[in-house]
Structures are given as structure tokens and as C-alpha cells.
């Protein structure tokens, strides 16, 4: 049986500064997971992924990451994505510094 599709966001690193980025519904790259577009349909997710992967001059290493939708926007479901969304734990040098 195929695994049921779970909600995803498109994520990558920005080409110029390496920062973690997410694809928003208006096709812009945003820095905060809360502004990311949540994809609940598998076919749509694949198309969004393909389109985003083609944007070579903006993003590196585009992929789909699992999220759980919530009232406050998408939440991470794996600790790796949590660290990507917030930054390293030893210094406030990542997104946690931006609040």
C-alpha cells in the first residue's frame, strides 16, 4: 500500500548566503517557516518541487519537508527541520536571532 501523503513545504538554502528558505504561495522565497505554503496534495507538491528546483540562481538543494499544519502556520515534525527553522542551539546566530 502506498504511504498516505502527509503535508509538506518546499525548502532549500539560499544561493547567496546559504540561509534556510521556504517557498511561499506567491512563489517568493521566505525566511520563516510560518510564511511557507503548506502543500496537502501530492501532485501539487511534486509540481511545486519541480518548479522550485529549476530556480538555480536563487536556491540550492531544494526538497520537500514534512510539516504539521496548525493555526500558527506549519509546524516541524522532525527535529532536523526544527533546527533548520530556528538555527543552531549554541548561539543565537540563526533565525532565532531574528525573532
Amino acid at each position, binding site marked *: 500500500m502506498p504511504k498516505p501523503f502527509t503535508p509538506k513545504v518546499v525548502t532549500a*538554502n539560499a*544561493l*547567496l*548566503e*546559504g*540561509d*534556510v528558505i521556504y517557498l511561499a504561495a506567491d512563489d517568493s522565497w521566505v525566511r520563516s517557516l510560518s510564511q511557507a505554503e503548506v502543500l496537502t496534495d501530492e501532485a501539487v507538491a511534486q509540481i511545486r518541487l519541480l518548479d522550485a528546483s529549476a530556480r*538555480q*540562481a536563487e536556491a*540550492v*538543494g531544494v526538497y520537500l519537508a514534512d510539516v504539521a499544519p496548525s493555526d500558527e502556520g506549519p509546524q516541524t*515534525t*522532525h*527535529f*532536523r527541520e526544527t*533546527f*533548520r527553522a530556528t*538555527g*543552531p*542551539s*549554541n*548561539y543565537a*546566530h*540563526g533565525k532565532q536571532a531574528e525573532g
Partner: protein
Amino acid sequence: MYRYTDFDTAFVAERNRQFRQQVERRIAGHLTEDEFKPLRLMNGLYLQLHAYMLRVAIPYGTLNSAQMDQLALLAEKWDKGYGHFTTRQNIQYNWPKLRDVPDMLDALAEVGMHAIQTSGNTIRNVTADHFAGAAADEIADPRPVAELLRQWSTDHPEFQFLPRKFKIAVTGSPNDRAVIKAHDIGIQVVEREGRIGYRVLVGGGLGRTPMIGKELTEFVPLAELLPFVEATVSVWNLLGRRDNKYKARIKITVHEHGIDEIRRLVEDRFAETRQAFNGADLELFDEIAAQFQPPAFRNVPTDAYDSAYEADPVFRAWADTNLWDHKAPGYAIAQISLKPHGQTPGDATADQMRVMADLARRFGHDELRISHEQNVVLPHVHKSDLPEVHKILKAHGLATANIGLISDIIACPGMDYCALATARSIPIAQEIATRFDELKIEHEIGDLKIKISGCINACGHHHVGHIGILGLDRAGVENYQITLGGDATETASLGTRTGPGFSAEEIVPAVERVVQAYLEHRESPEEPFLAAYRRLGMAPFKTALYGEETGKKARAA
């Protein structure tokens, strides 16, 4: 100190010029990431979890003050004000921007530094004993050989596309401080009937399949060293498993073919390589060795040291823990701990780098070393200067008296930075150090090395930690596996797994139970953890970790 020749300088300048254009072409959209990635990796530029990471080589861990100052400048100007010193005598910058990297490389070139062969399937930075040229137990300075190997391997046409990365370490002392038994090739300077030669080990390595290196030859004279090493790498270049990345390292080749067969093949190949070497390497060696002459040591009294040692308990604790025996009378090797309790192991701020550079300039014959244990070393300090050196270190958070103790932890970047990680390493190291500092028992515990890696690649050397900790991902939750009994020295051994891993919340108490068991079972305070473990075996530690029942089973097994 080795000075680059004009040839080296021109070579690095040309490489940087090329890379600058490649970066421009990538940003302008003329190169895809697939095309660009191998080019950036050739220049030490990785893409990590939150940003790029630039890895700069510090060949055999040796730096002068100007170079350290320049590392500080890079940290300040193009990063977030600090750098991370690693187990392979590199420094990593965690936050550079792609556009800035060519400027960073040019700034490094100004002081004879670069990031070449800090990535890729090449011969990586050649590492050496961090007490090289200073240690009382040294037979000969290992760095001339390390520099010879560096020059021979840099851009070596045959060895740019090896089956996998290749790491060489050299020690000049019988006491191994360079972990030569966990390297693809480990070289030890030895003396036989008054002649200096080299013992060569092969096939050590950590990572997914950890192995202790085996002796390939007990002695080659200098004249045969390079052709012998070339023959070894060349044999592996042919036999190495390119079909499977996880089986490509020379340790697997040695394991699959057996050390005797490898030795036979190397000898065969050596018969050819020896003919091809025309002796230019020996002339070069003499030129190199001439540049590693010891500094002009001062012969003055050590009164200032003696009285500070008597009068100041803080200085005494630091001196007892962080100093090492020097070969010259009146001198000491001073180790600067980059492990203040609760901080990130191996990190130094730009200010701290400048302080260390300044100390080297004023009191240390302009020399610094980076240790594979992620600390900095002032190799030549006259004892009379040590009270002043200590005072300055203290004022800058650099005087933690914990070298070799439980809080002197090696920790890889783990999932806080590394894209390959399966769990975090840094917070675990921070918590352990803080905990044992609170307990105030770290000096009582004595020599105990904890090493932590955030994944099976073992960059944090966990396999050779007295207590090793490996961070794993268990169903989306960080989990930490403990190994005991690893050893990175001349008596090297790989640690043994204790059993099931522990959650992030459980791991520090678990380490505490292991240490408590050691304190209860040791014969005397003179018996260090590793010796106690070797005498007692796993059982009492298993009981401490998992309870009486599991401990009994371990005893029966």
C-alpha cells in the same frame, strides 16, 4: 616556520583567481549547482544546515602570529566573529556568504594559507603531533616530513580522484598525540641504531567501519619514504572499491585483501616508484628541514614561575593541568583550553585569536599549534613568562585548567551546523562540562577523554574516546549511544558499545553514572579511567547504566 616559495604563492593565487570567476559565473547563473559544487568543494566551501562553511587547512597544526591574526580578521570581517577549530587541524567558518569567499581566500593567501584539498577525494591536510618541535619525548620534529608530504600530495596528478578521501598523520614521538592509528596512513618517526627512519601504519580510520591501523613496515629510511607512501596510495588507487562509497576507504581494502597481501603489492609497486624518484625530494627535504630549526631558546632562571607556583593556587592548578614537558631547559609547552565549561568546544572568538597571537609574539617565539583535541598550544614558552601569560589568558576566558580532563571534550559540529548529522553534539558537550564543573570533581576524576560525534562519520572521534558518545536519530528523536574503552594514543583501541542508547535528557545522568562507577571501583586515584576499564571490563559500567540484571549478564558473557 615553513615559508611558501614563489611557486606555491603563484599556484594559490591562480587557484583563487579561477575560483573568483567560478563564483561570479555561478551567481550570474552561467553555472548550475551541479557544475559548481565540485568547484566549491575543491576550495573547501561546503553548504551546511544554515549557511556555507569554509574549511581552512592549518598544515600540521602550525601557525605563526600573523596567520592567527589573519584567521581573526576573517572571523570578524566575513563571519560572525568566531571560528571553529577541528580534529583535523583545520579551522571552519560557519557563516560566510558565497560572494565573500574569494576575498576570504585571498586574505588567507596573504599569509600563506588556503583551503585546497580540505575536501574531495584527495589527500587531505597532513596532520601532526601538536607538540611538534617542542616535546621532551620527541625523537625528531615530524613537521618536515609532514610538509614534504603536503607538497608532494598537493595537486598530485595521480591522486586528485582517489576512491575516497585520504588522511595522513605524522608523529615524531613514541607517545602518539596525532592519532596515527586512526588514519589511512600513520607515520611514526623511529630511531634504529642511531638512524632516523619511519614506521608506516596503514588502514586505520573511524567512521562507519572503525579500524585500527596495521603496520605496513617497521622502518623505511628517509630516502624511501615518499616512494613508499606513493606506492601505498597508488596500490589503493587501483584496488579501492569505487563501486561503494562506504567501502572505498583504504581500511576496507586492507581488510578485504589482508595486510600481508597489501604489503606484497606495495613492495612490488615500490620497486617502480623508487626508480621514478630522482632524489629531488631529498634536496627538498633538506630545504624544508632547515626552516624548522628550533628558535633561539633563552637560558634564564625560572624564579618568577617558581614563586607564582608556590603562591597562587589558581596558577598552580593551571600549570599542573595545562603545561607539558619541553625539550629545552626552563621551557614549557602551554596548552590553551578552548573548552571553557559550558561553551562550544573548539570555538575561539576573533579577540581570543588575537590574544593568542599576541602571546605567541611576545612570549612564544611567534609559534602556535592547533591540537586535534580542538585546543591551541603555545609550544615554546619560557617558564618565567608563564605567570604573565596565565594572567592574560585568564582575562580573556582562555585559562580553563581542564586539558585532558572530563570537560576537555572533543565534539563535532553535529546537527547544529552539519548537514550530515543525525543528532546534536555541541549541547551534550556543553551540558556534560557544566555538570561536572558544578560537581567540582573533574580534577579528582583525572585523565578522562569524552568524544562526541553527531553521526556515524565520527568526526568527533567517539570510537577512540574513553567515553564515546554517538548521536543518532531514533524515529525522529535524538538518541545517544555510549561506547567505553576507546583510546586514541599509541595503545589505541576502539570503544565497545554499552547497550541501548539514551535520550537527550538521559545522556548526561548516564555519563555521570559511568563516572561514579569508575570512582567507586578504581584501585586508587592513580588508576585512570581507561586503566580501570581495561582491568574491570564492561560489567560494572553496564550495571551502573542499566541496572543490576544487565550487569550480571555482562559478567556472565
